[in-house]
């Protein structure tokens, strides 16, 4: 094998690897699923906004907004339950549930409106991994149920 040929092989293999790496890294695992919708609710995924529907998957960094009559309920993979009331906006800023590797993270941004939260397994296994964020304060959770209202 000539030197030039082996360099070409290394470069080619490297390029294939680089091309594949982002695909491995991004393999998206859903954070949860919408179980209930009423009224006007929209889901923003990857910068695209669409009406939220029952059964739709929700991913880390997705956000949900509700109209004056909108309500939505979702259950995350770790059994965390959330509901969002009318005139509200939330973002699931972070979700990681990998018990086989003991890796956990959950951050929920309550931008405006009304939210109910029932803790799931992440709060049980790693309470410090849970953060509920409002514009004026951060809520740390040691289990069970909370309601939050942001704004008037």
């Amino acid at each position: 094998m000539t030197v030039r040929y082996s360099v070409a092989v290394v470069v080619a293999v490297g390029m294939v690897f680089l091309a594949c790496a982002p695909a491995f890294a991004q393999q998206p695992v859903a954070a949860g699923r919408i179980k209930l919708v009423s009224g006007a609710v929209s889901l923003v995924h990857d910068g695209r906004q669409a009406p939220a529907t029952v059964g739709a998957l929700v991913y880390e960094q997705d956000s949900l907004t509700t109209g004056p009559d909108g309500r939505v309920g979702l259950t995350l993979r770790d059994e965390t339950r959330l509901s969002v009331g009318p005139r509200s906006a939330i973002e699931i800023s972070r979700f990681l549930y990998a018990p086989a590797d003991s890796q956990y993270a959950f951050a929920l941004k309550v931008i405006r409106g009304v939210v109910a939260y029932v803790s799931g397994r992440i709060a049980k296994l790693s309470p410090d991994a849970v953060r509920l964020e409002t514009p004026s304060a951060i809520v740390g959770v040691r289990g069970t149920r909370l309601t939050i209202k942001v704004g008037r």
Partner: protein
Amino acid sequence: MTRASTLVCLCLALASGCGPRRVSAPAAEGTALVVLLADPDTGAVGRATVSNANGAVDLAADRDATTVLTGRAPAPVSPLAADTLATVFGETLSSLPMAPMSFTLYFRLESNELTDESRALLPGVLKAVSTHPAPDVAVVGHTDTSGVPATNYALGLERASTVRTLLTGVGVEASLIEVSSHGESDLVVQTPDNALEPRNRRVEISVR
């Protein structure tokens, strides 16, 4: 007084009456109200800490609440009245999805077959699937600490796959089922390494 000046006075009076309300409203824009609630089924109350750069408070009892204005420390904790809770949060609380249901299945010794008691739970899983809207079914295999972690991971996955086959056999749609293994990392009964413990050898099903 002329009719025109009466009108002017009336308008001024109305305007001054409206003024303060308009000014006060935007001040509350980023205000957060945080309320801790007991679990309605068990009565258990968790705990929450509400904090920002200016201070922190702990919520520890049912309906413990705090209000946080932007740039201020969280207000001292006081209980939120039950009727206020219902008015502000009632509709939202009623939109929470149904609680998940869990089932734990055990295997016969040295076997890939479920115990009779565990096999009898399978129709209940199907029933839970049919009552949960847009259901997901998580099937997670667990082992005890005898043997090495990698083998136990594989063994947990094998047991979970066995249970998936049994679930589709009783009518649970295969596409709803997600199979995984926690190997020996999630013990029900804490043991040292290399301990035989039948209660740790299990498959947990959660319908959510």
